[in-house]
């Protein structure tokens, strides 16, 4: 029973990592007042870029870099449309999702001819699991052993990076001058502008930060968790991350807890497939799949707390009327 529980928690960590990275990505963007529906597309683009380059170079780090590059490029496109041209941020995000979905499948087919997938990664093209010192020797120690050997040790480096990004994000947003300005520009851009700080440049930096983290999330899917890119491999994870961001009320620590919760739901759903629950009977898998979305809707409705977005989110900033 305890072993089972540890195994579920172990897969919780694996499943929540891409959500967490994408969720933190959205956090930077939305805190600066740029709503980002395009997390899904950026993740997908990054997964493709990482998968393709890691296959060609047989180097996972170059793959990660390529993933970040693709994702940042898409982020800059979002910025160009919604910051420079003051276009509708939602529309721009929708466009990016379509572009990523179409281009990755199209280019994947043209370049690799495997139905849009990238070929299986060669040796070195994938982030392998890191085993912590003494993990094998401690495995048989009761309680602590499995926790250390299964839960803490034996993940790839991007998993640890994702969880380290949480305190880092908190520090950047709440303890640095950049973070203060970033949050201010999401609440009251006019005030920031009056202080002589460029709203445009701040928001661009937020969009770039968002792109970098989405790059990590995408690379995780294709060259750490998986061994290559598959068509539409994000499968809605970007939207779950968006839901998690709202659920966490745009706060880093809550974001981590929410992503762990959503990852846990996913892990349980996989585990529960076809199993009877005493007294309830078999719970359909679809229920667990829909649960993150249902919970987010209930939260948005204000029945559990209230999610108040950054005040200027979604509103393009107009310096002066002409």
């Amino acid at each position, binding site marked *: 029973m305890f072993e089972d529980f540890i195994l579920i928690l172990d897969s919780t960590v694996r499943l929540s990592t891409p959500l967490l990275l994408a969720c933190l990505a959205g956090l930077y963007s939305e805190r600066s007042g740029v709503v980002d529906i395009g997390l899904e597309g950026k993740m997908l683009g990054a997964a493709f870029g990482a998968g393709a380059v890691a296959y060609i170079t047989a180097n996972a780090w170059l793959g990660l870099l390529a993933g970040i590059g693709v994702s940042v490029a898409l982020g800059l496109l979002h910025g160009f449309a919604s910051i420079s041209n003051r276009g509708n941020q939602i529309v*721009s995000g929708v466009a990016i999702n379509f*572009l990523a979905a179409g281009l990755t499948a*199209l*280019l994947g*087919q043209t370049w690799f001819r495997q139905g849009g997938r990238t070929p299986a990664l060669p040796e070195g093209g994938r982030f392998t699991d890191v085993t912590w010192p003494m993990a094998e020797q401690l495995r048989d120690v009761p309680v602590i052993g499995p926790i250390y050997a299964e839960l803490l040790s034996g993940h790839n480096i991007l998993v640890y990076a994702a969880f380290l990004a949480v305190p880092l994000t908190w520090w950047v947003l709440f303890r640095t001058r950049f973070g203060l300005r970033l949050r201010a520009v999401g609440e009251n851009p006019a005030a920031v502008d009056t202080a002589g700080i460029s709203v445009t440049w701040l928001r661009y930096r937020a969009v770039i930060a968002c792109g970098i983290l989405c790059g990590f999330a995408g690379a995780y899917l294709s060259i750490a968790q998986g061994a290559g890119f598959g068509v539409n491999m994000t499968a809605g994870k970007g939207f779950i991350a968006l839901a998690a961001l709202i659920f966490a009320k745009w706060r880093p620590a809550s974001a981590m807890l929410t992503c762990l919760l959503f990852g846990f739901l996913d892990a349980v759903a996989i585990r529960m497939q076809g199993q009877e629950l005493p007294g309830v009977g078999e719970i359909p898998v679809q229920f667990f*799949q829909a649960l993150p979305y249902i919970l987010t809707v209930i939260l948005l409705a204000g029945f559990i707390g209230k999610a108040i977005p950054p005040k200027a989110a979604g509103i393009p900033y107009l310096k002066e009327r002409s």
Partner: protein
Amino acid sequence: MTAGQLPRWVDLGLIPFLNLAAAFLVSGLVVVLIGENPLEAVQILVWGSLGYGEGIGFTLFYATNFIFTGLAVAVAFHAGLFNIGGEGQAYLGGLGVAFACLALDSVVPWYVTLPFAIIGSALTGAAWAFIPAWLQATRGSHVVITTIMFNFIASSLMVYLLNGMLKEQGSMQPETRTFEDGGRLPFLNDIFPSFGFGYAPVNLSLFLALAACLLVWLLIWRTKLGFEIRSFGANATAAIYAGISPVRTIVITMLISGGLAGMMAINEIMGSQHRLLIDFVTGYGFVGIAVALMGRAHPVGIILAAILFGMLYQGGAELSFEMPNITRDMIIVIQGLVILFAGALEYMFRPAIIRLFTPSQALKAKEA
């Protein structure tokens, strides 16, 4: 940069044309990147979609779907709402159509089933839009986010239903039984054999879609409710000050929007598939966003944009046959580019064009 700085034909004609031209130019570049000849690709695409009867039939069939989902997005646009949930609402609309057809198909002819299918699809589609609408109106939760969430919930719900109570007994497929003749709309090929639509599934729903266009035009520009919707969309604060109820306007607009999206299922389920099956919407709801943006939320524009996207879908299928490098994913790329240039980058060319037009106007002002 207010409206009125430019002549009407520039605002309504030239700028949308430039935006579209940019989208297709970039699409052409993508084709070049793949290593194919874009002009040849356009030729195949146009021939495949308009060159022969069956091709035209398929183009019109897809266009019917896009008219419904485009109208759904457009009606919401007029109230300043962005309904991304067309996908889920259309999916649920299938449920309404299936209920009507499964109950009546062996008892009455299709023209008796049709009104029930229309009501069923509009009701289930509208019901799926109701919760996001009501939450937006009374609780202030953003309709964009809730409708996205509802798309996913719809997908899970339909998979559950089609694997359970709706599944045909003894079948392995997650779909309902095939409808009898009473649950099938006549194909246009059977009504107008001389057009030679062949095996194209274009059916009577096309006329239903055109009627919906007319009704939406009447509603938005010729009724009190339409005026309220447009006022609310143009300036919510002023509309509320003028005594227009925001809750009523938001909920009614979203119900109409959801109902229109749901009616897409008539074309797909009663008109073509003749059974309810998983994932029959396959992105048509999202295409509605591109269609509404391109058609500038006007029914006439939507019909034209829907036909263009119908051509892309049908011609794209032909294209992937002739040029295996250009898979159907190319359509998704074009769709993304249209949404990008006609929607998000709507204002990109404006400053340049205003500069182009102002000197001459300033000169005229001096002469006067």
